[in-house]
């Protein structure tokens, strides 16, 4: 039995229900697994958002609900003295609110910043995966219960037939920056990578439908192909990061266009107007 949460960024709409439910549960209330969360300033369920795209032609927002990852081999456990951080048999990582007194290094050790330092109580604290409620018979943690869109799925990671295991098996797992190569009990799915996009037009105020767009990365040898849609838009998502791409746009009867872009971040490359071959 190993408790875990699958968090699907494709399903998340940043409604902040999980954030609110977490605050409702933990602010002002202590348990044997944590001192009370202060009313403001800590985000045990932190919604990380960033805007993707650099021009109005294609803007998206990535939303990644980010609680403690409940690592299998947690950095905070190593940073703690006196066994102040421990892993329960069910995989939940707990900071002992008594033993951890005065150990600020626990808060500082987390690679994703999911541990908070309570100045007043002089103790580090974080998401308990609602262990105290699960013991009382709650079926899922508060954040999962509050999610209206099945973006958060809770269950037993050791059971391949559990809903959470099936969700993970079917999804695209992305590891958070700082936790690469780590096994975690909170598993992130479908965190967007980098896109390149554009819109292709024809002269005479028309969009170019069905233009072939080829993206070639010489350094990594990868080639991606797509065609422009009904709106003349093309987009290739989840490209390898920090690579230079040579882009060719081709359409019968029109001169080919060559562009280039670097995948340092999401780019709307260009509004391209094709010229007819005369």
């Amino acid at each position, binding site marked *: 039995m190993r408790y875990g949460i699958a968090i699907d960024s494709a399903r998340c709409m940043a*409604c902040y229900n999980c954030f*609110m439910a977490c605050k409702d549960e933990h602010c002002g209330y202590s348990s044997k697994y944590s001192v009370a969360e202060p009313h403001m*300033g800590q985000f045990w369920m932190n919604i990380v958002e960033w805007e993707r795209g*650099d021009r*109005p032609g294609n803007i998206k927002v990535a939303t990644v609900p980010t609680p403690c990852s409940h690592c299998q081999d947690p950095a905070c456990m190593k940073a703690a003295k006196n066994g102040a951080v421990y892993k329960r048999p069910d995989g939940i990582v707990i900071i002992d609110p008594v033993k951890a007194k005065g150990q600020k290094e626990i808060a500082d050790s987390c690679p994703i910043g999911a541990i908070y330092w309570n100045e007043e109580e002089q103790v580090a604290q974080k998401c308990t995966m609602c262990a105290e409620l699960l013991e009382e018979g709650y079926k899922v943690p508060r954040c999962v219960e509050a999610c209206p869109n099945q973006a958060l799925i809770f269950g037993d990671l050791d059971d391949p037939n559990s809903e959470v295991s099936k969700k993970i098996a079917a999804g695209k797992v992305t590891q958070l920056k700082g936790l690469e190569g780590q096994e975690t009990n909170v598993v992130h799915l479908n965190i967007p990578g980098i896109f390149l996009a554009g819109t292709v037009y024809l002269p005479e*105020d*028309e*969009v170019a439908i069905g233009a072939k767009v080829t993206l070639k990365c010489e350094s990594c040898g990868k080639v991606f192909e797509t065609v422009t849609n009904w709106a003349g838009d093309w987009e290739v998502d989840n490209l390898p990061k920090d690579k230079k791409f040579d882009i060719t746009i081709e359409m019968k009867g029109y001169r080919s266009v060559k562009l280039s872009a670097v995948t340092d971040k999401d780019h709307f490359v260009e509004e391209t107007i094709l010229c007819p071959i005369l």
Partner: protein
Amino acid sequence: MAEKITHSICVGGPIRIHTEDGVIRRVRPLVFDETDPKPWKIEARGRTFSPPKNTTVSLVALQEKDRVYSYDRLKYPMIREDFVETPDGKNRNTENRGKSGYRRATWDEALDLIARETKRIQKTYGKESVTAITSSHHSWGLLGYKLSCFKRFFNMLGYTRIMDNPDSWEGFHWGAPHTYGYWWRLGGPEPFDLLEDALKNVETMIMWSHDPDTTRGGYAANESAIWRHWLKELGVQFIYIDPFNNFSSVKNGDKWIGPRMGTDAALAEAIAYVWLTEGTYDKEYIEKHAHRFDEWADHILGKGVDRTPKTPKWAEEITGVKAADIKAIARRWASTKTMGGSGMRGGFGGVCRTANGTEFARIMVQLFAMQGMGKPGQNMWTGTTGAPMDYNFWFGGYSDPKSSIASAPVADYTPVNEVQQVLYRTNLPEAILEGHYEWYGEGFCGGSLEQQFTEHVYPLPGCNRVHMFYRYGGSFFGTMLDTNKWAKMYKSPELEFVVNQDIHFNPEGRFADVILPACTNLERYDIGEFCNSGNSGYQSHSQTGNNWQVVVFQDKAIEPLWESRSDYWIFSQLAERLGFGEKFTEGRDELAWCKRFWEFSDLSKRISWEDFMKKGYYVAGVPENWERHYGFRWFAEGYPCDTPNHKPCQEEGKLGTLTGKFEFVSESLLKYAPDDEVRTPIASYKHSWEGHKSLLAHRFPYALISPHPRFDYHTHHQQHNKWLWEIPENRKVVNGNPYQVIRINPIVAEKKGISEGDIIRVYNDRGSILGIARITNRVKPETIHCYASSGIYNPVVYGEISADKGGCTNLLTPSQLMGRKVPGMVPNTTLVEVEKFEVPAEYGQGFEKILEGVK
């Protein structure tokens, strides 16, 4: 530890409340048990779609506990410290309203004072000299709601009623009925069973001025979010048209089109141009169902009086949207099965709250008509309503006359207001300050088309002006336009006496002479249905925005905190002091009234009162083969109308227009308002009086878009719940003040020397607000975005008209209405300028004053 579980509903959905030893511990979504009915199933495109067996909530529901114990709760009755009860109502230091502190009073002292003043003012000036109004939805439940106990009290007293305006969907209300009827739905379309239709048939969704993940079907929590994901999974293309690349669009959109604010009607006309010139509309349908289509087509094609073809190129110049993009959308729309519309239920949206809103709404309807509205997969439907429902189970919503203690059958006695004089909410300040106001229409014109043209004048001949104002629940500071006028109104000696009955120390309450502390829904009894606004009035069957039809016994979780009391108790006490106590209560306490709603509804046929109270909720369920009544299908296919809430004309296959057809030239406008320059017989784009072509644009070059808020509900949460301040897309706390996020384009930021996170001032001649700069390509360079309904109003000079740190966007919006004959408000017709702003140290926080008020 004694744990108790009770239930309630709020604008964020049904909730389950855990109380431990008399203290609310947590608030959770409703969880169904095995005895509750099975979910409905829709078979479509080889898949079975079925909702999860629970109801959802929105973020505001999950902070109900915090709202109960909020730092700014009103704890005791209070009287303004410099209020003097002069015998003639003069010299009461009214100019200090909004600024003065308060002293604690006893309930007897406060209620006796209100009773004395009510009697004095009505004796001196007549019954009509008292006026009163409520906010919308600061609480939920058929007993406590504004159309129930408030209405019962004031109808018994006799008062000048203040008409509400359809503030969230003005253009559809005042415009769309002249094209397709549906005045009884206040301009909105029929949603019935269109979810199933969409899942089976639709290929393209037009989300025009629509952010469903933000407006959430009104008060349908997040029930419909999953439907839109299903549609995405089926490959449906979502086109978002909105000057702000909104929150749903950036997560789920396939194409974003950002027209210049208020120019959408031109974009819509150009789409029609493409269809007319390419012959890609449903000619047979139009032949059969359209009235004076050819004249309208002439107008679009440039053969009308203005000799201007409404080409995509013409629209590009006005809207800033490329002609090529307009053609692409027009062709996608015409060549695929397309549903869509505007705003949270299809007939809403920010665009219809512009000076051109009626025209936009009418052309929207015309576009859907041109593609055979009502045929499978072709309809006005925006993915937020139309779930399967058992139409044979009736429990009233808040606008149903049968679901109010103000009238029979729930009440034995139906009081009738004996005062004929009325006021109009949008321009109440003008009426009070200038002593005169004239307007057309009945506010909500659900009774007939003609209601839009009735004439009103204040004061009514033979009547006196109002001198006492009783304000109940929530704050208009933040939702009503040109808010500084409201502040000026409150400071006027014309209002000799002002009462405010509310739960929190809201911005507007700080202008009252007497403040009465009401308790929250969680401290009293009530009964209500999830997202039911009424099955006969308003836009009926709004609960089809839910996956489940749920009636909740809104049990008392805790006793009223401090000295707060239920609204019913407060009105009962006043009624007693005014001599009609027994008549008001009919000898019933709150629980006895709740039982009456059970008794006079279908609920009593399904569950006993005792079981209902014990369980806390009832799920109506949908029969396996429920009766389908696809919205508008009857019209497209020519069978007698079978949709719920229909009118006799529909049974003859007619719409509710004068001709019974889609009127492309409006006969009702020709008949009742032929001189209307705003709402012309042929709907058309017109430059607005405060648009990019107006003279004002030289001084204030940016258009402000201020939609309904994502992180609040009206003004009901933002000031009370500090967790909301920690949401980066909402606010940022700087030096103790939670500044609201204002979105500007990078080009504007560079021009003005503004960096991300700077404090900026947005202003025009009406006022100025301070906020935090968010630099983003989600708005075009000509647009600035800042949510309306700030909930916090915190002028830098406390109690004086000055720049606002709370982000009360409506200080900037105009109180001018759509037109002389179109009494709709237009918050999205607002021009502003923006600058970087260094906040002087002496501006302080203002919140200490709020805390002082509730100490």
